[in-house]
């Protein structure tokens, strides 16, 4: 573990530094002056000349003024898209491709079967038996393949070779991608760092040929350039898409992000099967005849597809003035009433009339186009919309994970975590044992409460006495995973609206097991089923959880911090439009409506937790006192037997009989009396009794959080 976290710390430092000075993050080899569109020489020239009265004229400047293409803009600002450095770029590339595959499968109603491969090209080029992982930056091949609907031939070049081209931007429907920037940005990053085009194979059906493309991106024009185009008569899948990208990446530092991303994606998408192939060096290799890489599989936990998210029209309450004018411009309706009814959801003829009764020109026949040209009129309408009560937007556009699947996802996630190997053995990563479960015996069992078994052995001698400590029946909400008991609770809130956008919050928690009791909880953030791995501190989800008073739910919580306790907390926001703080989609913006829902969901889940903890504490207390008496009865019976010259056996039985008679209430009564009388007597003994209680498992499962911490600390 030590090694891994040291690596993470290294990653964190460089990431943080870059984040503060984004302009330094351009191509390190050609430092570019901050004049967009100017070549280095041009920008440097004026400064070199002896300063004249006027350095540039409007005319000379006009020569340099030209359009900036989005691709040019993002070449310079790639941190905005999550390509800050080679380790993060690796994750972002994988993420964009995997998110697209999951989106496409879901939209087509297909149970996703994904393959993700990361190849260390330098390692694979060397003799595999002794080849080591590339240290630091190097060339990597990322392959993502899905069994989705495929992409029609004509669309492929634009999807992969043009920024801001996609099917999801112009509609309101819950999906992972939304801006149409994702995969083409990854292609652009690959091209910039390796010069290699993106390679896409796609097939839309059994009757169609598969097609392979190699596509480059003309960043000046933001247009695709197809360098290779070939039809394949044979392909192993009836439909689906395979994307291959060569990029400069840093596996050493980036692997923990990737591992965590895959792990968490499986958690939030229990309907997906993911096969994950990743590089391994000679040192870590378990299997000599599988050199270079290893494959881990995450089988799906359910064959039930998530509820289909329906596309909706925007709700009037969420529209901004500019957008309203734009929509009016494009409207084909004859009048404003028709425009409102057709362009927005929840606007009936009645509602439209209601809105129009609030504007001075409401009675007149106004064409929507007029609104686009007359700002005052548009503003009046915008104001009127805000003042009119309307039905909330439809919520069938949302597809939450749901209580049951969240539970299933958590269980299979914890199963992977619990089968993790010996951490002391070396810097084993999260998933190391997932693919080799049989090899590493989980040592969890021995940590399970030993008390109970012991109680049994002792009771044998006392034949007439009932079983002193019966094995508790399986408790509600408790899942036994690899010998560890986890309490799992989930809450799915009903959909709500922020700025006219429907959204829904879900919270799931797994308490106990082998999570360490004295550390900050694990917070897993998700937006539209996509794990958010960075910028934990800047995220609205974190704020919602921090602002929840977890002390009410029997966890400790330092001021303005996440609670402390043996718990992992999953928070998912599903929305047609998740408000991220930036294009790299790492943190959710702090909308009060969203924060409130997160808090309400956390509270609801917290109440379930508190009930469980209270119950368990009471049970522990009973079991503890029982076992104390059992231990001492033996001793007392022997001593009294010797003093009175009797056999200890029958004495012991008499004591055990009383043990079951003396009720908890009686004991509490006597205890109280004892405390009142001789305080000094009761206290130290209490401390002793508490000793020897089951200690939290020493095996800290902290490594997962490292990704977030790496980013922030």
């Amino acid at each position, binding site marked *: 573990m030590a090694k891994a976290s040291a690596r993470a710390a290294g990653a964190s430092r460089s990431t943080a530094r870059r984040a503060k000075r984004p302009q330094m993050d351009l191509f390190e080899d050609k430092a570019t002056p901050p004049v967009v569109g100017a070549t280095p020489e041009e920008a440097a020239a004026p400064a070199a000349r002896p300063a004249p009265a006027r350095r540039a004229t409007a005319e000379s400047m006009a020569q340099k003024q030209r359009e900036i293409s989005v691709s040019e803009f993002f070449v310079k600002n790639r941190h905005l898209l999550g390509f800050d450095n080679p380790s993060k770029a690796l994750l972002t590339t994988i993420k964009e491709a995997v998110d697209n595959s999951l989106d496409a499968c879901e939209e087509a109603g297909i149970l996703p079967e994904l393959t993700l491969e990361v190849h260390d090209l330098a390692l694979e080029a060397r003799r595999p038996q002794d080849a080591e992982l590339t240290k630091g930056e190097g060339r990597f091949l990322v392959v993502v393949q899905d069994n989705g609907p495929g992409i029609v031939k004509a669309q492929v070049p634009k999807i992969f070779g043009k920024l801001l081209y996609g099917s999801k931007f112009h509609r309101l429907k819950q999906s992972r991608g939304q801006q149409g920037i994702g995969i083409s940005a990854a292609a652009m990053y690959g091209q910039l760092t390796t010069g290699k085009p993106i390679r896409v194979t796609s097939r839309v059906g059994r009757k169609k040929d598969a097609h392979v493309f190699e596509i480059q991106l003309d960043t000046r024009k933001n247009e695709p350039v197809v360098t290779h185009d070939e039809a394949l008569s044979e392909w192993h899948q009836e439909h689906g898409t395979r994307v291959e990208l060569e990029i400069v990446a840093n596996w050493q530092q980036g692997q923990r992000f990737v591992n965590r991303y895959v792990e968490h994606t499986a958690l939030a998408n229990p309907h997906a099967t993911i096969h994950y192939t990743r590089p391994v060096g000679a040192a870590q290799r378990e299997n000599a005849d599988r050199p270079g890489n290893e494959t881990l599989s995450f089988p799906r936990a359910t064959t039930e597809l998530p509820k289909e998210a329906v596309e909706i029209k925007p709700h009037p309450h969420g529209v901004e003035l500019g957008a309203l004018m734009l929509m009016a411009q494009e409207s084909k309706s004859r009048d404003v009433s028709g425009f409102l009814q057709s362009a927005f959801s929840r606007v009936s003829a009645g509602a439209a009339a209601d809105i129009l009764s609030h504007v001075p020109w409401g009675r007149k026949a106004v064409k929507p186009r007029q609104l686009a040209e007359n700002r005052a009129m548009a503003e009046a309408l915008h104001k009127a919309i805000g003042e009119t009560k309307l039905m909330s937007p439809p919520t069938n556009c949302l597809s939450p994970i749901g209580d049951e699947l969240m539970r299933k996802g958590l269980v299979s996630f914890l199963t992977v975590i619990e089968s993790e190997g010996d951490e002391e053995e070396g810097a084993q990563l999260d998933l190391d044992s997932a693919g080799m479960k049989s090899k590493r015996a989980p040592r969890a069992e021995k940590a399970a409460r030993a008390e109970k078994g*012991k109680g049994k*052995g*002792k009771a044998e001698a006392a034949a007439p006495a009932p079983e002193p400590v019966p094995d508790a029946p399986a408790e509600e909400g408790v899942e036994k995973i690899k010998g560890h008991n986890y309490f799992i609770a989930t809450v799915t809130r009903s959909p709500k609206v922020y700025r006219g956008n429907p959204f829904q919050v879900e919270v799931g928690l797994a308490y106990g097991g082998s999570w360490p009791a004295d550390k900050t909880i694990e917070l897993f953030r998700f937006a539209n089923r996509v794990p958010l791995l960075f910028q934990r501190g800047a995220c609205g989800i974190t704020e919602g959880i921090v602002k929840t008073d977890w002390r009410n739910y029997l966890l400790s919580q330092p001021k303005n911090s996440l609670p402390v306790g043996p718990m992992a907390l999953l928070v998912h926001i599903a929305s047609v439009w998740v408000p991220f703080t930036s294009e790299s989609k790492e943190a959710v913006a702090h909308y009060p409506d969203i924060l409130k829902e997160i808090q309400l969901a956390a509270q609801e889940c917290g109440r379930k937790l508190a009930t469980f903890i209270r119950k368990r504490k009471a049970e522990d207390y009973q079991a*503890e*006192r029982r076992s*104390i*008496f059992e*231990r*001492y009865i*033996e*001793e*007392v019976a022997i*001593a*009294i037997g*010797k*003093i*009175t010259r*009797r056999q200890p056996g029958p*004495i012991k039985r*008499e*004591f055990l*009989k*009383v*043990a079951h*008679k*003396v009720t908890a209430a*009686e*004991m509490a009564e*006597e*205890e109280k*009396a*004892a*405390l009142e*009388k*001789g305080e*000094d*007597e*009761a*206290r130290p*003994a*209490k401390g*002793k*009794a508490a*000793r*020897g209680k089951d200690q939290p498992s020493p095996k800290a499962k902290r490594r997962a959080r490292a990704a977030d911490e790496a980013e922030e600390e």
Partner: protein
Amino acid sequence: MAPRKDAISKKTVAKIEKLAESVLKTVQGGKNPFLDIPVRSLANVTWSDKRRLVELGGQKQKRYFFNVSMAKKFMQTFLVSEACKELIDSGKTTSIRDLYYVTKHTIGDTRQNTFEDQDESDPIIEDLEVTMDSLREELHLFAARKGSMVGPVTIVDTGDTIDLRRMGSGGWSVPSIVEENVITFRKHEAKYVLLIEKDAVWTRFNEDKFWKRNSCIIVQGGGQPPRGVRRLVQRLHRELKLPVYVLVDNDPWGFYIYSVMKQGSINLAYESMRMAVPDARFVGLSSFDKDKYKIPTNVAIKMDDGDNNRAKQMLAYPWFKHARWQNEIQEMVKSGQKYELEALSRRGISFITEEYLPKKLKDKDWLE
């Protein structure tokens, strides 16, 4: 062994058996068994003006077995009882440290021990003493011996005649059991007993042959005197009619040692009758000696918080209510300084034996 001892042993064993039988009866009756233990804390200690002793009050505490906070101590009490019974049965005596080892073992298949350390077993022995109204000696137990004595007296210790005039530099070490069946007094020419707090100061008195010149017995108990020393001093006082003088440091701890010699301690209040010497006199070091004997202030030690608290507690003890004692303690608190006996050595190494104490005794400059 003397027949008397057999009688006591029989009685003690009977008491232990009775304790066990009564517990057994309670359990057979389906009830939570308990021990009735007199409370040994300040709340249950009273000052008898008439007898001038600290006495144990009537408060008792029930120690139940089926009670999470009491179960272990209940169990421990029976482990100790059983071990003592075995000692008595076999006619052996052992130290309380030894008893700790005898009764200590791991409980079943746990990692817990019956006793974690001796601090756990010592109070159980005291509990047993008060509960059964038996002396430690009657349980065949003794504490680690501590304390030494010399003087013009001949004694018999388990049959050996010992002349305490010929004990060399170390003196005779006082055993922890000093009852009549062990120690008896023979010929003596002592006029009084001087109890000295510290071994080092006692050594000076012995080396200077103070006891020879002044015909007295000098005893030291290494700080708070153990039971053997206290019991022996009481016997010297009662049987040989010797007055007792106490010489301790001028600090709250020294005053407390005097107080224990005189009235008994809170913890062992049940044994005050056997150990206290209500007539014992405090000869020094007094808070006013620094002026009377010109002790320079640079040998004083600053009182700390613990000293001040202790002094305040003592101001409230009934046996320190006398105006002279209140003055004595208040002077110490007011000055904020305390003095060790050794501070007198500033006036000469034998100042304490040649000038200080003789003058004190001559002037009858003591407190009672």
